[in-house]
């Protein structure tokens, strides 16, 4: 690889050189101050964090994009930031990535065209309808299941082994 190419690969944001804060209007957006390679501090009034590997590495490789969705840089690991910085980013990601984690499956009922699921998630209770028995259930690895409902919303069973007995009984109806 030539030096020229390395230019394209200087995208890791140095956690020491960056600071996130709520922007002035506090419309809920995040702003960022970044000290660039030239030593000059740049202010980005609106940035959006984007998960590069949303499913397999949700806490790593967070791409920071500007207002026009152009990438400014990538944060390699959230954990290297300070606690309140992490909180800010995590909150923003929590708002942007809505894939509730299923904590309990209360009931699964078969209907004429779909299955009615009643679940409890880390974002609250939810009733959803899922087409087909398990066509809309994607297995990631052997123990993680992502459910896709008729409204195209997704729900995450991170490890079905960790569910309660009752949840497992219900789940066995469809897998």
């Amino acid at each position, binding site marked *: *690889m*030539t030096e020229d*190419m390395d230019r*394209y*690969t200087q*995208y890791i944001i140095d956690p020491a050189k960056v600071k996130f804060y709520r922007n002035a209007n506090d419309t809920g957006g995040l702003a960022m101050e970044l000290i660039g390679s030239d030593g000059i501090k740049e202010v980005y009034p609106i940035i959006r964090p*984007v*998960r*590069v*590997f*949303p*499913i*397999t*590495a949700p806490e*790593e*490789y967070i*791409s920071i*994009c500007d207002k026009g*969705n*152009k*990438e400014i840089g*990538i944060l*390699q690991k959230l954990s290297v930031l300070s606690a309140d910085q992490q909180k800010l980013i995590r909150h923003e990601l929590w708002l942007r990535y809505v894939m509730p984690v299923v904590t309990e499956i209360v009931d699964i009922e078969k209907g004429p065209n779909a299955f009615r699921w009643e679940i409890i998630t880390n974002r609250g209770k939810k009733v959803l309808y899922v087409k087909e028995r398990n066509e809309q259930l*994607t297995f990631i690895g052997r123990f993680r299941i992502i459910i896709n409902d008729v409204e195209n919303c997704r729900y995450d069973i991170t490890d079905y082994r960790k569910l309660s007995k009752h949840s497992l009984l219900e789940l066995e109806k469809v897998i």
Partner: protein
Amino acid sequence: MLKKLRKNNQLKKGQNILPVMVSEAVKQQFPNETIIISALTDLLFDATYGKEWVVLTSTRVLIYTQTGDEELESYSLRTEYALSTLADAKAENTVGGGILELITPDGETLRAALYSNTHARRFARLAHSIQSKVQKKDSKQNVVPEEHTKYCETCGFPIPEGMESCPACSKKGRTFTRLLEFSRPYTKSLWVVLLVMILSTLCGLVAPYTSKILVDDVLKPMKNEWMLAPLALALLISYIGQNFLSALHGQLVAILGHKVVYDVRTQLYARLQELSLSFYDKKQTGSLMARVNQDTNEVGQLLVDWLPITTESILTIIGIGFFLCKLSWKLTVIIIIPIIITIWFFKSIWPKVRVYFHRYLETRAKISALVSDTLSGVRVVKAFGQEKAELQKFDEKNIDFRDAGILLEKKWAIYHPISHLLIMLGSVIVWYVGGKFIFAQEMTLGDVIAYSGYLSMFYRPVQTLTRMANTVVNTLSAGERIFDIIETEPEIKDAPDAVEVNDLKGEIEFRNVTFGYNKFKPVITNLSLKIAPNEIVGLAGHSGAGKSTIINLICRLYDTDAGTIFIDGHDVKKIKYADFRKHVGIVLQEPYLFSGTIAENILYAKPNASRNDIIRAAKIANAHDFIIKKPDGYDTNVGERGVRLSVGEKQRISIARAVLSSPRILILDEATSSVDLETERDIQEALERLVTGRTTVVIAHRLSTLRNCHRLLVIEEGKNIEIGTYQELIEKNGAFYKLVKLQEQLSQIRRV
């Protein structure tokens, strides 16, 4: 009459040897000549069927044609050519056959002989030999290997391609033994299964005998009332025993069968992965998929369902036969005749009914194929407004299906009552003759009752056996197809002296390479070229000129027919295959993405790379930006069951894949499909970054690529006709110039 025809169709072993008559004639007419090679053709010079022999001697080409009756095998000289008057020879392919052409030094073409496709390979060889002789070349070098359709010696039918022996005549026992070999690790379980089966059968045979004892020793003489209870108990136990043991047997067999099939399936799949591309060229993907999926399932069913049922039936029949004879051998002798008639009936009618069954299955398959075809092409149907025509097509097939079903039911409806009747006939005979025997004091009532009971148990296994016989044979064919693949040796495999090459510089050399996908139709002839390490070489030429073939050879997806390819000075055949593939990267015209996430696809060549490496490769390929725009980012599912990517996106992902694997030799088959300007620019940039610092061979379609190449090779009809830089070739005003001009014109039209 039939026998005679068959014999003649057989390509007997000796048929390819020059008949004595001809060789004698040659010796007589041309006493100083030695015969070098000869070929038999099946077409006369007027293209009708007949035999001719073309003989190449040291100074002549002689053609003997058949005279008189086919049986007599007499020949006379039709024409001769002196080699001194010839400059070249060619086996020209026509549709369904070919012409042997001899070319004079003036360029005149003489037609020497005609042949059908059966002899195409032989004539290619002959033409080559003539050519070598005339041009005084070393004929040993470019030998076209002898391959012809093999015919089975037993039945005269051709052996399917890729198979070594005739599947119909092969010993079915052999496949069976091979299947059993697979179950060798489970021998202990097999013995248990057998034991359970014998016990179960024995339990089943107890019942009628118990009724004999009941009638003879207890009920009729009205004595021994104490025996009632133990007899009833014995009966109960035997029934329970039989049911239980039967269920146990079923379970054990199922477990065993599934385990064995698992082993077969694993071996089959492993072998399929090993086999080279030429194997896949010859077979259709569909039939291969059928082998892995359907055939393994069929073999599984054979082991799990049919075999146990068959063995159980055989045991039962033997057991019953024993008891029948024990009770009254005289009655058994009498009853044999109706039994034989019944068996004959089962055996002969069943194949006939089967024909209707097959027709039913076939019409059903045709209808589903039609539906699948039409519905997947619904866009085209609607665009051309052909709904009515499609409906009519469907209706025809639907009618066939309906009729096949009705006919099947009708035939089946006849079969059943008749078979029942025959069975009942047996029963009637037992009572009549048995009755007579009772009066003659040769049998007791209990004997007859037991006999009747055994007889009624007899027919079911017989019926099962007749039906199973054919099914088992057919399923064994499935097994054969599987073993056929497992036993195929991959064409491209490591030579015993293959070496590992660790530090590849990336120098490629072709030395007098000749190759064709069909052995007698070379796509590349005598090609020689040399590519230096880190050189970017472009291949240009019309479609079909041989560019993709050159690339396939560099990747060693095929081996050359003649000549050698050297990588860093090593004969590519002497480099360890797995090692070699690590150093070669390829970006195809049609980027194929497997079912999986984008990250998995990029990682394909280097599964252990880190996430950082993936992002880096994607950034270099200008793919990162569009990937993170997708909601699942790099974890987006693509391929069969995932999101559809646009052509430009697929291209860039496949470039990222190549970047990650960072090969020393990069093969690039540029896509010709058009994308929007911005994407085009992104792709171009990505490609430029990709080819830096490695030996690249690119089939170029873009002007910019052509300009960036260090050298360009212009290929036409498998030969390298121009070499030079872009500038040099344009100035030459030759074939390359014409190509570029044509492309410019086309792009102008596109712009308009």
